[in-house]
């Protein structure tokens, strides 16, 4: 009998062996990760669904594409909005219609796609602007005429008309990301979640859906280096859950829920910096005007009168956030001083009866987050008070962000939605999403107004701040008059991070991953 034949393979033995093996592999992977160098663990509020900057769905995707692909310029961290060169050695506006750029000489694409050239700049910007490609961000380059290639690294961006938001909400955003022409063409014209031809200071090394995205330092990136060897991005939808993760030591940086800011500032976790930042984001209650019963304008108006916005915001954010008067935050051009329709439950009941909708039941879709659920429940109570029953439907982020998309047949049935958009520091970025052409993309209320569409176009090419102010106020009036919107709040942004981290944050608290450094 051989020695091997004497091995006693009991079930318990096999289980013990498997357990020991798992433990050993866990220790090994942890050690390997520690040995690899410094790691920053950050939380993002959503998982990636695409890494194509032209078709990004939410800010967390932009945060990642901003570091794995080089843009012409990139936003700077700090308390005021600004930008710095990324792929360009030099960029300057020669006149209101002409921007000249010269690329840095040795930015390479991974996967053998060669050096970044002006031809790639032309391809990337014109691809995003071309209406045929149906990028939801085409409006960021609304007045682009063409990108002229002067030589291998230089070119000129020609605009047909002056473009006010160019240096605030177009160039320093993923809309100026340069992709490899050859790589995108070979990929069939669109990138998915597997990035090819990366070019930024970090590379996407690994993506485990719903768990984490691992970014590693790009050894070929020759310019300003990121502060960490690896950045682990953990998608955690709910801020309150993220807070618990942070306090358990699993994260180095996270947004907090608005309702927790006061408590965290008073009693912060150990070795933690808690910061409150003004937010430009906007939260609103939307009604789809083509879906019954909200195809009745009286019922939409009833909801506008029937929602006690202060009660909703106070309940959701524990008094930490103020109500809003529109989609443009205080301090920006076009911010309105007041709403057109304030809380008036008696008038709301009258309108419900006029619409013959007393006792009607409608669905309110929300993202599955604690604050949204609280807000939705107050809306539910308010509307029940005026004779409208509301069923709250909680969705995870993957489902939620496709509810109003043309690819999802539900976009015609969607009735009410509680939503939040992040924002760039130019009013055009707020109004952009409510044009007729955005129906089936981001305009989930299917609001359609020729006057509004015209103002959106004109607002971008008007350079006089006073005139723009009037235009953007008018646009919000039109939105509210349509009955499709109840503007709720701009929130505030709560951020916390370890004292061992020097966080690279934009003025509104959004992260610039490459600018995070060890303190």
């Amino acid at each position, binding site marked *: 009998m051989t020695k091997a034949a004497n091995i006693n393979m009991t079930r318990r033995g096999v289980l013990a062996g498997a357990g020991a093996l798992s433990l050993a592999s866990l220790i090994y992977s942890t050690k390997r990760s520690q040995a690899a160098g410094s790691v920053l663990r950050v939380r993002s509020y959503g998982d990636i669904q695409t890494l194509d900057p032209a078709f990004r769905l939410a800010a967390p995707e932009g945060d990642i594409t901003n570091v794995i692909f080089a843009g012409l310029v990139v936003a700077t961290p700090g308390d005021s909005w600004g930008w710095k060169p990324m792929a360009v050695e030099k960029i300057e506006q020669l006149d209101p219609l002409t921007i000249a750029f010269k690329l840095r000489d040795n930015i390479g694409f991974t996967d053998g796609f060669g050096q970044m050239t002006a031809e790639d700049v032309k391809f990337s910007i014109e691809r995003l602007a071309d209406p045929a490609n149906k990028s939801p961000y085409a409006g960021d380059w609304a007045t682009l005429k063409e990108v002229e290639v002067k030589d291998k690294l230089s070119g000129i961006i020609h605009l047909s008309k002056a473009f006010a938001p160019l240096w605030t909400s177009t160039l320093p955003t993923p809309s100026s990301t340069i992709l490899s022409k050859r790589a995108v063409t070979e990929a069939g014209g669109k990138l998915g979640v597997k990035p090819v031809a990366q070019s930024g200071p970090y590379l996407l090394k690994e993506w485990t859906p719903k768990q984490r995205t691992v970014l590693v330092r790009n050894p070929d990136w020759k310019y300003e280096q990121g502060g960490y060897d690896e950045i682990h991005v953990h998608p955690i939808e709910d801020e309150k859950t993220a807070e*618990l993760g942070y306090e358990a030591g699993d994260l180095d940086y996270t947004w907090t829920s608005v309702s*927790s800011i006061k408590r965290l500032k008073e009693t912060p976790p150990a070795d933690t910096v808690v910061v409150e930042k003004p937010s430009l984001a906007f939260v609103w209650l939307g009604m789809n005007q083509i879906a019954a019963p909200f195809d009745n304008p009286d019922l939409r108006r009833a909801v506008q009168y029937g929602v006690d916005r202060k009660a909703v915001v106070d*309940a959701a954010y*524990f008094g930490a956030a103020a109500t809003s008067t529109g989609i443009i935050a205080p301090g920006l051009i076009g911010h309105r001083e007041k709403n057109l329709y304030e809380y008036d439950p008696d008038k709301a009941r009258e309108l419900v009866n006029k619409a013959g909708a007393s006792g009607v039941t409608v669905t309110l879709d929300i993202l*599955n987050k604690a604050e949204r659920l609280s807000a939705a*429940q*107050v809306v*539910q109570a308010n509307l029940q008070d005026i004779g409208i029953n509301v069923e709250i*439907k909680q969705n995870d982020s993957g489902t939620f962000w496709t509810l109003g998309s043309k690819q999802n047949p539900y976009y015609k049935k969607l009735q009410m939605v509680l939503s939040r958009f992040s924002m760039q520091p130019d009013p055009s970025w707020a109004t952009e999403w409510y044009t007729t052409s955005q129906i089936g993309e981001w305009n989930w209320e299917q609001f359609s107004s020729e006057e509004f569409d015209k103002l959106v176009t004109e607002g971008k090419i008007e350079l006089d701040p006073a005139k723009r102010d009037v235009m953007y106020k008018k646009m919000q009036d039109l939105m509210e008059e349509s009955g499709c919107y109840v503007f709720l709040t701009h929130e505030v942004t709560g951020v916390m991070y370890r004292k061992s981290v020097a966080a690279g944050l934009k003025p509104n608290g959004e992260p610039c991953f490459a600018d995070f450094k060890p303190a």
Partner: protein
Amino acid sequence: MSEQALIERQPRERIGKAGRVLRRILREPLGAFGLALVVIVVLSALFADVLTNYPPTKLAPADRFAPASLQHLLGTDHLGRDLFSRVLHGGRIALAIALGATGLSLIGGIVLGLIAGYGPRWLDNLMLLLFDAIKSFPTVMLALTLVTLTGPSLLAVLIVVVLVNVPGYARIIRTQTLVLKSAEHVMAARSMGASTARILTVHILPNVIGPILILASMDIPVVVAIEAGLSFLGLGVRPPLPSWGAILNDGFVNIRDSYWIVVAGGLPIILTTLGFTFLGETLRDVFDPRLKRRE
């Protein structure tokens, strides 16, 4: 003995048997404890409206996170709702789902089990394949899939529980039916020309239903936990209806602001689970003492 005397004696015998069972349950400390818990949970759910003046969905944000007091026995949640009221009304929903879903599962399991056990071999094999296929789905995954397709609702929870439980019950009924199929009294009934329906309902069903009722009573806490779990994830009972799982979730996300919400949501789940489990185990011992001796 006259026929009249027989008729009068039967209910008395039944009462006597029920009394004996009750006495035996009460003799077992865990059984008595389980029964007490179940009675408390059931009565508090039934009389929720009498035991508290606060409507369970009434919002009062100004009173949020109020600690336990005479006014609010379990305090209030983040929207100022009275937690005692929500727990009691949540019990009503939990028990309604548990009893409703278990009842439906029993009916489904019995019907399918009888068909599988008494029907032709090929049908038995086909149904076994189907039962195993359904059982092979992890409960949570099945629930997530169904809720994604239908949207979160009480009905979705009910369907999930029925789908998960029916194969287990059906398998037990099927096995016992297979044994009884060739029992003398069944063969005698068949030879006397009794229909299949009569054989199944009169001669087989009464002999197989006992064990499955005990099993069902022990499944009630499992169903309560499934409902609470789905509601915790936002996939079960829709807001603002109170559910223990939803209360637990409210407590989880606000645990740094107030710990008592978690306690208010968790305690009834624990007590209900313990109560039905202890009661079910005692009932099993009472009806099948051999099991207890083996232990």
